[in-house]
């Protein structure tokens, strides 16, 4: 039940935000009958209606699957946090170093022990991916202090 209610509440909040943002859109002189805000408002209304449906059904049923401990979700979100940290660091540190750090941190996060093999894996992995993307494919990967 908690999951469905969370889904319904976040859906309603998003629908409201989308409606308000659509209402704030400027009107163009080229505007057609529907307008730039027409479809977004319709979708916001549809999302609100479906969210209410999910919420009402959750309240009526009450029973639901047992929830997982919050620590598990935080652990899963930690993976995304590592990615965000990489995205923040890459333009400053440069691609190879930032990627090696990401590889090392991610391996540790997934359960590797802090030993030289992990560091070696991070360096070798970053080298392989740099070779593939920067050298073989010729992509201009993020530059920075060390690249």
């Amino acid at each position, binding site marked *: 039940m908690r*999951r*469905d209610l*969370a*889904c319904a509440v*976040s859906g309603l909040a*998003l629908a409201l935000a*989308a409606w308000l943002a*659509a209402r704030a*859109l400027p009107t*163009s002189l*080229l*505007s*057609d*009958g*529907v307008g*730039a805000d027409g*479809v*977004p408002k319709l*979708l*916001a209304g*549809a*999302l609100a209606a*479906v*969210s209410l449906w*999910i919420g009402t059904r959750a309240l009526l049923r009450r029973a639901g699957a047992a929830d*997982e401990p919050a620590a*598990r979700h935080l*652990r899963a*979100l*930690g*993976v*995304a946090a590592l*990615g*965000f940290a*990489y*995205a923040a660091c*890459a*333009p400053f540190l440069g*691609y190879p170093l930032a*990627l090696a750090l*990401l*590889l*090392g941190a*991610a*391996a540790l*996060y*997934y*359960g*590797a022990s802090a030993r030289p093999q992990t560091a070696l*894996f991070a360096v070798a*992995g*970053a080298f392989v*991916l740099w070779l*593939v*993307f920067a050298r073989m*494919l010729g*992509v*201009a*990967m*993020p530059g920075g202090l060390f690249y």
Partner: protein
Amino acid sequence: MDELALAWKALAASWAVPAAFAGVAWGIVGGALPGISPSIAMALLLPFTHGMEPVAAIVLLASVYVGAEYGGSIPAILIRTPGTNSAAATVIDGFELHRRGRGGEALGISLASGLVGGLVGLAVLVLATGPLARAALAFTAPAYFALGMLGLSAIAGLSGGSLAKGLFAGALGLMTATVGTDPVTGVARFTFDSPDLLGGIRPIVAMVGIFAVTELMVQAIEPDWVKPSGRAARLRLPDWTTWKRIARPQAIGAAIGTFEGATPGAGGTVAAFLAYDQARRWSRHPEEFGRGSIEGVAAPECANNAVTGTALVPLLGLGIPGSNSAAILLGGLLLHGLTPGPMLFVKNPEVVYGLYAGLLVANVAMLLLGLVILTPCLWLVARPKHYLMAFVFALIVSGVYAIEQSVFDVVLALGFGVLGYALRWTGVPHLPLVLGIVLGFMVESNYRRALVISGGDHAIFVQDPVSLGLLIAAALVIAFSVRREKRSSS
């Protein structure tokens, strides 16, 4: 004959043949790794295709799909862990055969049946897609809107048991598609003054986030998979007696795979289980099922490989992806400026016929590579999960950045990964979200274009016979799906 010449020319003039081999090899390896589904294996390669020429890129992606369906059966047979969802039915008898020392035979039957299924699926793809696309050539703006609605109506069947949640995801996807410049007036919508969002959210970035990043997050809280034992099997192709025995389950698997593949939302998993069930029903030895039946391996493997071809029929013919893997292939087409649907046959026939020929090469490659890739696959499956996941993560962030050399895209993909994880937690299916993202622009732009033509009169959608037919079909799909959901819940 012209089509054959086009197919040959497309293959000869591009890197399509090496791409087919490479795609199948990566597909088998990816499929063999638990947690890497065919769509994730394809999503990981998607950014690499950016600089490739279109035919080779599309063949590469489609070949991954072909290879992954076979690859999934390797851990299913050897370690009782399906590498892909659609290999779950293969576990039942495949592992039992392996336990009795016949793992090599089971792997050979899986490979041979996969080849048969793949070729049948390809034949259906070649025969059915062209006529479907030619019929769709008569489409006007109202008809395209109605076609988009028909695609969206598939949400009802893709909702995983909760229509409300399917619609929730679909609405979210459609809202995502409204970000960027308005198709009629040019007004910037929901861009928060960021130039990165003016062009809208690229479906490929959203897909990589929703499929691959979400899976990485889930893998962080899932236990490690079982590693293969030292008693590795040697693959053994079926002899004539075995071929005769598995011909019937293969026919059943191919027929069910063909139908389920072309039906949006059904896919390889449903096809494999249905085929297993029907093969047992029509078998002369039903008592062997569950105790190590070779028919129990042949039927599901033939079915899930038939799906790899037929799942592309609605995608290529109408531009509607009916499965995760088809959605990724759609992302690949869009990445190369190709719009799937009837006009693809007119504007880029070399891509379509090159894909057909490439799929034929991929199926042959599956047979050849299947014989030699088993040992590297087992080695890879035995690697520590933490190193594998870390490398996949680095591959994703590098690949997403490479598409447009944009760190913003990396952040966006991670954001979609978090969204995908939240949706998974709340039981909201992912595919309707993806459908909304890829079909949103088509639906909105043609809806408004049609209204401009009619002067704002909505009757245009029922006056156009094609549009009316498609809208009725969409209503029927929804009614059928709602009825099915009511039945299953009762």
